[in-house]
């Protein structure tokens, strides 16, 4: 395939990002005889071609949510829609096909995404195998690697690559099948700033040029700042959203409103809060008025 034809295939393979939505998503782990709720009713919508970050403290359920979106786990309750598939009801074959063509999960740590005995080129080719078999027209591995700036090292043994290049190779592998959805778990951890920026730029390129929907789990505030939309998961719920630098609290389907962390410091438990609708706005706005506890 010529480079031009390959690029055409690349564009054809990436015309649509994949829509993601979850409804009242619950996931419970069983650990040492105890049940632990990792997610307790998560509602999330990600539009096709959107790039979002999942933020939150350790153990909040970010990675679990990512795994549920990749179909690695089946949710304990609730629905997960990825493209046209409701994952909790998907058959193994459907899941395999989805992973082959539409959804790429990039695990934390570059080495977990790469076959150690293959070169970057071979890894990409391996990752494309199932999609090609399913009839998906894909670009050549060289082009995929060129997309992340790794075409020079296409045939370099992995062990001799820098960590940043390895992570780029992992990204290339994830993008090898031109998925509609890229799920990346901490893609920049353990990288220096330059490498981190390069990885993020490559992800952004994929999102922009190929229309791939991107969901990134990160702890890194710099990475979060880079993303147009962030969703904070806290205690297994969506605890807030950030859009264009503005942070919002999100009302849960059952009517709860998790307070942002900095508000929590002011509103101690037991504080009475009253909502007042202002009249000066035509659409109507609410003002939150904290009053002292009636018991005190």
């Amino acid at each position: 395939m010529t480079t031009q034809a390959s690029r055409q295939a690349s564009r054809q393979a990436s015309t649509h990002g994949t829509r993601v939505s979850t409804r009242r998503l619950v996931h419970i782990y069983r650990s040492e005889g105890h049940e632990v709720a990792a997610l307790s009713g998560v509602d999330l919508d990600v539009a096709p071609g959107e790039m979002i970050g999942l933020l939150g403290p350790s153990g909040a359920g970010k990675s679990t949510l990512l795994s549920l979106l990749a179909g690695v786990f089946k949710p304990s309750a609730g629905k997960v829609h990825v493209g046209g598939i409701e994952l909790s009801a998907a058959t193994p074959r459907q899941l395999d096909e989805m992973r082959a063509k539409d959804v790429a999960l990039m695990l934390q740590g570059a080495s977990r995404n790469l076959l150690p005995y293959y070169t970057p080129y071979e890894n990409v080719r391996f990752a494309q195998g199932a999609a090609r078999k399913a009839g998906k027209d894909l670009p050549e591995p060289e082009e995929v690697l060129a997309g992340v700036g790794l075409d020079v090292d296409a045939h370099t043994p992995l062990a001799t690559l820098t960590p940043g290049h390895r992570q780029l190779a992992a990204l290339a592998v994830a993008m090898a099948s031109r998925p509609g959805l890229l799920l990346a778990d901490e893609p920049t951890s353990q990288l220096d700033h330059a490498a981190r920026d390069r990885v993020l730029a490559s992800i952004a390129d994929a999102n922009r040029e190929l229309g791939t929907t991107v969901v990134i789990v990160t702890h890194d505030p710099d990475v979060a700042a880079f993303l147009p939309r962030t969703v904070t998961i806290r205690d297994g719920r969506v605890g807030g959203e950030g859009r264009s630098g503005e942070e919002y609290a999100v009302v849960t389907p059952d009517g709860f409103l998790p307070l942002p962390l900095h508000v929590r410091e002011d509103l101690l438990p037991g504080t009475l809060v009253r909502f007042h609708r202002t009249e000066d706005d035509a659409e109507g706005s609410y003002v939150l008025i904290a009053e002292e506890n009636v018991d005190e």
Partner: protein
Amino acid sequence: MRLRYRPFQAVAIATLAALITACAAFAPLYDRAMRQALTDISIARTPASVAGLQMTGTTQLGGFTFATHNDTDPPTPEVVAAKLPEDLRDAYADPVLGYSALVISEPGRSSDPRGQLIWRAGQCEHVTMVEGSCPDATGEIAISEADVENFGLGVGDTVRVAGIPRDLARRTVVPSVPLVVTGIYEQQRDDYWFGLNLTGLSGAVDSTPPPHVQHDIWLTERGTFDSSEVPPLPSQASTVGYPLDPAAVGVDDVLALGSEIEHLKDDARRDPANGVSVEVYSGLPDIADEIREQTEQSRVTVPLLMAQLGLLAVVVLWLVLLAVTEQRRPEVALARLRGRGRQGARRLLLGELLPVTLAGVVPGVLLAVGGVALARTSVLPGEAPFELGVPLLAAVGLAAAVLTAVTVLAVLRVSREPVETLLRRVPPRPAGFALGVAEALVIAGAGSVVVLFATGGLDGPIALAAPGLLAIVVGMVLAHLTTPTAAIAGRRMLRNGKVRAGVSFLDAARSPATRRIVAIVTLASALAVFSADALLVGDRNRASASEQGAGAALVVDVVGPDLAAVRTALTEVDPDGERVTPVVRLVPPGKDASGTLAVVPSQFQHVALFPGGAPDPALWERIAVPDAQPIELTGSSLAVDIDDATLRSERLDGEPHPVQLGLEVVNERGETLQVLLGELDGPADHTHVEVPVGCREGCYVTGVWLRTLPGATIDGSATFRNLVGLSDTGTEPVALGPAYLWAGLDDPVDGTVSPSSEDPEQLTIEVHGEGASQLTMSQVWLPGTVPALVAGELPPGSDDNGFSLVNIDGEVSDAARVATLERVPASPPDTAVVNLDLVERGSAITSSAVIELWFAEDDEALLAEVTEALDRQGVDVSGTTTLAGVRQEYDESTAAWSLQLAALIGAAALVIALLVLVVSAASSWRFRTRDLAALRMSGVPSRSIGAMAVAAQLPAVVVGVVAGAVAGLVGAHLALPIVPLFAEAPEVSTLDLGTAWVGVVVATVGALVVLGLGSVLIGRALARRSDIRRLRETL
């Protein structure tokens, strides 16, 4: 690429696969090689006359053979030779055709020699003509040198022998056949003659009626038998000898030939069409039976032994593949995440592992072929061609199928795991003691079989599997107990501040390899210990059986019963009897009769071999010669005075009857002579007697006897004085007394004869006889009741310790069992050992006795010396038996070869266990070095890290070796009573199944050294690689 990334794993897997293939391929190859070796040595050991095929053809019409004066000629040798079917002839060399007949020298008196006349094609090349020429014309003969000497025949002489009239009805005169002596031959002893001795009969008398003197076999030309000018000869027959061609006969041919010769014997016996009868003789059917019997053993033992090793290798391969596939879980997870599904994951793993596994097949076959080639040169005798047959292909196919199945199963196990499980760094594993269903089934199954062995519910060569099965049970249970125990111990050590040991134990408890190592090391060590024990026990028992069978390092049979000559010869060579001793063996006919072995105890106890330990030297004192001197008499006659005789004999009718009085003497040839001194009609004060006696060369006076009419009584006394031997040279006085030199007779039926008198010059006897038979009082020098050391039971009808045995004179003697021997060397059960010096007294050795010379050492120079000395005494040696030869016969059996294979298996099992250690380390070294690096990062000194790396595996190895040694010992205890140690059990059992502790200790220490050292080296290697850089993510 993938192989290059993990080359060590690939080599380990391929090595195991090669071992499995080698086990499968080795069994049929080794079994085949054993059978070939057995065939080779069986044929080689068998004389050509027995292994070959001999046919004798006669014509038989109306129930009469040619020998009974039928005038029909026998079939020609060519006709007889043609009786052997074409398809069997490839097994034989060209036949040797011949004729034979009985010739009776005229006029046919008993002094006219008769014997065989033969012709054999090519005979002149197999005799040396001492004089004259080999016969080449009808009517010519060659005779032996002995015939020249015995019958005065010579070259040019004519011997006339009786022929048979062709027409009995018309001719009543027996035709005479002139045979002209043209040469004197000396036979060349070679296989051409099929064991036929041409000489050795000349001058011997054949007592078959009518008694006649025999000549050696005469050789003649073919025309003497089939020329029309010569009348037929009595008992004329055609002979054909087919020498077996060992190079053309393989094991299958022998087995087939054995059956076909049996058919041929029946078919060829009678040809109803023309009355030709062919007698067929061949020992091949017996050889075939022996081979078949032994191969029945090997057919079970070899595959069973190899199956154990193969099973061990399969289990190890399974465990290694599990470890390897477990290590590849992240890769499988990746394949699944990239949408390849379970099938794709399977293909990924199989694409890597199956070629590696199958790559071991060809080296495995080569290993097996090389191993068998080595065994053929170093263990197995014979030079049979190497055969790679269909069984090998089947075995290799089976090995390939097993390898594929094991690989696919191991791959399936991982590829079926859900993605979420595959993504976990450490797979979920049950904590504490948990037994999988499959493991429980294996333990229960193997345990049940072991219990069946222990309770005697199973028998046969399958017992060889007992140690392996027991080790599986012990190993698996122990493996499951080890990890929780190590965890508990580790935690306790940590609590007590023993950080280094605690961490090591916890590391061992955490590692899945620990269970594998314990189980496999237990099994391998058990096999090694059992193999070593079985090998040495087998070796010891074959050595014991050889010693028992041979009797001494070298045993020589001599011809004839001339014991005096033999002893003279031995005295010349070895006066002290320290190196060689005479033994006289008497084996009476009949199943219940006890054999007798007459020995010189002082020599025999040092020369003979006593497997299991020599008897107490004090025992030999119990058959010592009594301390009594003989009474010697020399002369051609003797004179004696009989004084104060009051002897009276009274018949039943009350009338007196003379009493006959005599002496019993034994001459130098051992012949007993009854010397009648005279008759006493009644009391007499003095009677002087002088009678002739054949004692010129000296005699022993061994008895005084009295007799009268049967039924008549004898009473009274008499005194013998002045006994002298008279000869040309003068007189020689003989002292008959005092009384203690004589053993009085006290028989409740016959009566009593009591000696008295203190004076050595005289002997007084008091007599009371009932007249039942002759009363004889023996001299104490002559053995009365023979003291004997007896092995086994006394013959039926024996009274307490009293029994009867056959003495060296062939007569039955009273004997007393004075002690018991566990076994008598080179003798069947129930053999009595007597003192040769004692039983020789007063006895001439019977011709049925066999005189043997037992040598302390297998010393050819001494043998030559003794043979020369015997030759000077006119005694020939007829055969020799060596301990080494007997041992070789025991060693060259499928039972022995199978046990040698067991040793190889023990060693191979240790190598496999070592491989497990290496593979376990190789498949987990990245994780383990990272853990050790973390400890290094925490400030743990390098030395401690090295010790911890070693301690994580070494205790499991030590536990496994110790448990394996115990399992191997117990397994040997269960299995060895059933394992065939001999092709055929020896007549006298010397079985000793006691543990061969040397072997057990060597095997255990060997296992500890090999596996322990391996474990230490592996631990150190891991510690060396645990650089802090390992903490960084590595590929």
